[in-house]
C-alpha cells in the first residue's frame, strides 16, 4: 500500500500516549510492590481457582451476549425504519449504566426468582455488553454488500446457508473482536460480581480488590492482577490473529435497506425486543425515582433539579446538575482524545508490519482493572514532581485509556475491509499520497471515528473505578454521586440516586443518537 509518509510515523502518538499513561504508572507501581518474595504467592491455589471460575462465567456471558446482540446488530445497522437511530442509541445504554444501578434494577426484576449466583451474573453481563456486539459487529455488517446475500439465495442457497457461507465469514473478524471484548469485560467484571455473585461466581478483579483494600496484601494482589493480565492478553492476541487472518476486502458502507416481506417482521420483533430488554431495568429505575414510602412523589426530582437540597450545603453530594456538567465535559474530552489516539492506532495497525503487535498493545488497558489504573495514575501523576491534577485532565486521560481498545476494535475490522485500490487509483490519477489515502479511507474513517468517539464518550459517562481515585472529592462525576448516595441510608438517597441514573440513561441515549446522526450524514 502506498501509505503517505506521515502515516508511517502516526504510531508514535498512540504509542507515546500508552507509554506515558499506562506503562509508566503501572511499571512504577509494580516496581514498588513486587519483591523476591512475591513469587511464593504464585503457588497459592486461590487465584488460579478464581481464574477458572471466571473463565467459565465469561464464556457463558459472551455466548449470551452474542445470541442477544447479533440480531440487534443486523437489524439496527442495516435496515431503514423510523426510530432506527434511537433504537441503536438505546441498545448502547446498558453499557454505560453504573453497575451498582444495573445490579439493583436487575435484582428488582428477576432477583426474586434467580437470587444471586451464576445465572443472574451471566444475564447481567449480557445486558451490559450486548452494546459491544451491536457496535462492533454492526460497524462491519453495514459494510457487507447486501447483494452478495441476494446473489447466493438467487443461486438456490437457503436463507441459513447464505448467512453461513456468505455473511458469517465476512463478519468473522468483527464477531471475534466483539466476543473477545465481551469475554474480557465479563472476566474482569467487578461491580456485578460483588453485588450479584456468590462463592462460585467471582473474578480475579474482586479478589484484587479484597487483597488491596481489605487485606492490604499488595504482593498477592499483584499476582492475581498478573494472572488476569495474562489471560486477557492471550484472548486479545487470539482476537487480533483472527482479525488478521481475513484478507482485506473491497467493501464500503452500504445504504440502509427498507425491510421487505418477512424482514419487516424480523425488524419489528428485534426492535420490540431491544426496547423491552433495555427499558425493563430502566423503567424500574424510573419507578424508584418517583416513589417513596408514602406513595408517588416528585421530591427526588426536585432535589435533583436543585429546587430542594439533599444535604444542607454538604460537600459530599454537591449539586447533581454540576456533576452532570462535569461528567459531560469529561466525556467530550475523553471522546476527542480516545478517537484521536485510537484512530491513529487503528491506521498504524493497517500501515505497519508490526501492526498486530501494536494492536495488541493498544488493547492492553482492557486487562488492567480501572481501579488499579486509577491508583497507578494517581501515584504517577497526582503528586510532585509531576502533578497533573490541577489540569483536570487525569480523568479524561484514564477514561481515554479505557476507551482506546474499544475504538481500535470498532475501527480496525472496518478499515481493514475498506478497498485499498481506491488509494492506488487516486494516486495513479495524480493525487498526492495524503490526498490519495484520504480518498480511499476518508469516508469510512470519518464514520467509524465518530461512532467510536461516541462509544468513548459513553464509556466516560458511566465509568466509576478510575474516577473514584482521580476525581476531586468536591468534584464528583455522576456515577460517583450515585455511588455516594447509595452508600448511605434514607429513602431520599435511593430516590435521588435513581433519578440521577435515569438522567444518565437519557444523557447517553441522546449523546449516542446525536453521534450516530453525525456519523451517518458524513
Amino acid at each position: 500500500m502506498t501509505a503517505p509518509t506521515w502515516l508511517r510515523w502516526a504510531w508514535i502518538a498512540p504509542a507515546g500516549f500508552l507509554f506515558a499513561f499506562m506503562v509508566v504508572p503501572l511499571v512504577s507501581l509494580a516496581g514498588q510492590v513486587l519483591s523476591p518474595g512475591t513469587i511464593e504467592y504464585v503457588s497459592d491455589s486461590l487465584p488460579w481457582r478464581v481464574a477458572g471460575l471466571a473463565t467459565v462465567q465469561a464464556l457463558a456471558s459472551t455466548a449470551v451476549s452474542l445470541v442477544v446482540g447479533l440480531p440487534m446488530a443486523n437489524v439496527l445497522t442495516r435496515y431503514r425504519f423510523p426510530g432506527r437511530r434511537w433504537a441503536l442509541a438505546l441498545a448502547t445504554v446498558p453499557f454505560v449504566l453504573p453497575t451498582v444501578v444495573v445490579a439493583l434494577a436487575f435484582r428488582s426484576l428477576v432477583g426474586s426468582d434467580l437470587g444471586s449466583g451464576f445465572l443472574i451474573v451471566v444475564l447481567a453481563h449480557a445486558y451490559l455488553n450486548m452494546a459491544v456486539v451491536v457496535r462492533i459487529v454492526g460497524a462491519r455488517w453495514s459494510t457487507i454488500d447486501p447483494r452478495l446475500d441476494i446473489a447466493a439465495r438467487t443461486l438456490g442457497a437457503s436463507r441459513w446457508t447464505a448467512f453461513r457461507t456468505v455473511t458469517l465469514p465476512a463478519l468473522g473478524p468483527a464477531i471475534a473482536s466483539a466476543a473477545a471484548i465481551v469475554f474480557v469485560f465479563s472476566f474482569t467484571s467487578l461491580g456485578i460480581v460483588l453485588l450479584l455473585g456468590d462463592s462460585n461466581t467471582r473474578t480475579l478483579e474482586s479478589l484484587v480488590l479484597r487483597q488491596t483494600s481489605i487485606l492490604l496484601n499488595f504482593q498477592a494482589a499483584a499476582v492475581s492482577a498478573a494472572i488476569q493480565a495474562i489471560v486477557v492478553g492471550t484472548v486479545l492476541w487470539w482476537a487480533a490473529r483472527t482479525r488478521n487472518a481475513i484478507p482485506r476486502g473491497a467493501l464500503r458502507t452500504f445504504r440502509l435497506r427498507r425491510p421487505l416481506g418477512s424482514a419487516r417482521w424480523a425488524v419489528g420483533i428485534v426492535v420490540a425486543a431491544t426496547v423491552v430488554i433495555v427499558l425493563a431495568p430502566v423503567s424500574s429505575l424510573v419507578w424508584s425515582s418517583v416513589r417513596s414510602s408514602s406513595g408517588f412523589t416528585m421530591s427526588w426530582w426536585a432535589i435533583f433539579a436543585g429546587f430542594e437540597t439533599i444535604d444542607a450545603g454538604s460537600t459530599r453530594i454537591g449539586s447533581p446538575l454540576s456533576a452532570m456538567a462535569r461528567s459531560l465535559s469529561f466525556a467530550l474530552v475523553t471522546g476527542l482524545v480516545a478517537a484521536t489516539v485510537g484512530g491513529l492506532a487503528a491506521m498504524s495497525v493497517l500501515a505497519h508490519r508490526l501492526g498486530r503487535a501494536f494492536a495488541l498493545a493498544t488493547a492492553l488497558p482492557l486487562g488492567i482493572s480501572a481501579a488499579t489504573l486509577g491508583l497507578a495514575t494517581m501515584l504517577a501523576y497526582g503528586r510532585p514532581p509531576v502533578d497533573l491534577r490541577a489540569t483536570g485532565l487525569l480523568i479524561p486521560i484514564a477514561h481515554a485509556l479505557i476507551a482506546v481498545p474499544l475504538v481500535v476494535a470498532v475501527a480496525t475490522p472496518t478499515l481493514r475491509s475498506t478497498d485499498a485500490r481506491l488509494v492506488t487509483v487516486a494516486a495513479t490519477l495524480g493525487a498526492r499520497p495524503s490526498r490519495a489515502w484520504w480518498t480511499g479511507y476518508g469516508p469510512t474513517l470519518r464514520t467509524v471515528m465518530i461512532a467510536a468517539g461516541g462509544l468513548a464518550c459513553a464509556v466516560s459517562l458511566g465509568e466509576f473505578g478510575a474516577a473514584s481515585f482521580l476525581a476531586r472529592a468536591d468534584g464528583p462525576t455522576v456515577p460517583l454521586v450515585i455511588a455516594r448516595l447509595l452508600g448511605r441510608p434514607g429513602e431520599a438517597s435511593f430516590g435521588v440516586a435513581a433519578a440521577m441514573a435515569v438522567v444518565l440513561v437519557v444523557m447517553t441515549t441522546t449523546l449516542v443518537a446525536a453521534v450516530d446522526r453525525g456519523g451517518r450524514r458524513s
Partner: protein
Amino acid sequence: MKRIPAVLGTGCLTSVLVLAACSSGASDTEPEAASTADLAGQTVQLLTHDSFALSDDVIADFEASTGVTLELVSGGDAGSMVAGAILAAGAPTADVIFGVDNTLVTRALDADVFEAYTSTEAQALRPELAERSFDGRVTPIDFGDVCINIDDTWFAAEGIAPPTTLDDLADPQYRDLLVVQDPGTSSPGLAFALSTVSRYGDGWVDYWQRLRENGVKVAGSWSDAYYGDFTFGGGGDRPIVVSYATSPPAEIVYAEGEPPEVPSTSVMTDGCYRQVEYAGILAGTDQPEAATLVIDWLLSPGVQADIPLNMFVFPARDGTALPEVFERFAPQVPDAEELSSEYIADNIDEILSEWGAVMGR
C-alpha cells in the same frame, strides 16, 4: 520501637547519641502548631474517602480564618484510600489524610504514612479516645458503631418480638430473617464479622455455622443489603440487617416531605462493632504547618458539631452537642465490641478465609 519517621531519619543518623531520643518519641520535632499569618495564600490538600462530608460553611470558616485554601482529594473507599496512602508513603498525594479507621490504622502506621502531631485541641477529646493517638501520630476525629438494625414495623405487624442479642439471631424463631454483607467486600460486613470474633473468641466459626443453618443471607455490599434485601429500605423480605447505629436517624433526616415522628427501624445494641476514624499529617508533606491547621480544625467545635448530620457518626470531642434525632434514636453503645488493630492485621487473612469456608463462599 524500630520505625523512625522518614523525615527524622537523616537527623537521627548524624549522631548515635540522639538515636534513642529520636526513636523513643517524635514529640521533640513535631511540627509546631502554626501561626496563621504567614500561611495565608497557601493551599492544603485533604485526602478523604468517599463517605467524607462536611457543610460548605465550616470549610469556608477554615479558609476565612486561616487564609489557607482547603482542597479535598478523593481516595476511593476507605480501604482503597489507605492502600493508596501506604503506596505513596513518604511522597504523599496530599498533606493531610482523614478517615483511616481502627481496622486499618496499624497497617498505615507500620508503613510510616504519618508525621506525628499532637493538636492543642486533643485535650478536648473524649477520655477513652484521647489515649488512642499511637504516640501522637494520628488523631481520632469521630467514631460510630456497626449494629444490627431491626424493621420494627415488620415485627409489629407479624406480632413477633424482635431479637435483642447476637445469640437470638441464631434462634429458629428468626429463621431466614437476617441479611449480612460479605466481610471480604464490605466494610460493615467485615465489622460485623469482627464483632462476632470479639464476642465468641474461638467459638465464632460455630456461631456462623449456626447463623448459616438459620438461613442468613449474604449480600455483596451495604447498599445491596439495605436497599435490596432489607424490608424497610427496599422491596426486600429480610427485616434484620447489618447497618449502622445511626441508620434510624438517617431515615428521618432523609425522609420525603414531612419526616415521621419516630423511625420505623431501630438498633439492636448487642454485638455492635466500634469504628474510630483517625486523621493524620501525611509524612513527606511540604506543608507541615498548614497541615497542622487542618487537624486542629477537624477537632474544632464547629466541625465536630457538623459531623453527625453529614457523616452519621459521633464526634470525638467531649461534650459536643448532638442533633435531636441523634439524641433520640441513635443509641450510644457503651460496650461495643472491638479488636485491636494489631490483632486484626495479624489475623484478618485467616478470619476471612475461615468465614468463607464456613459460609461456603
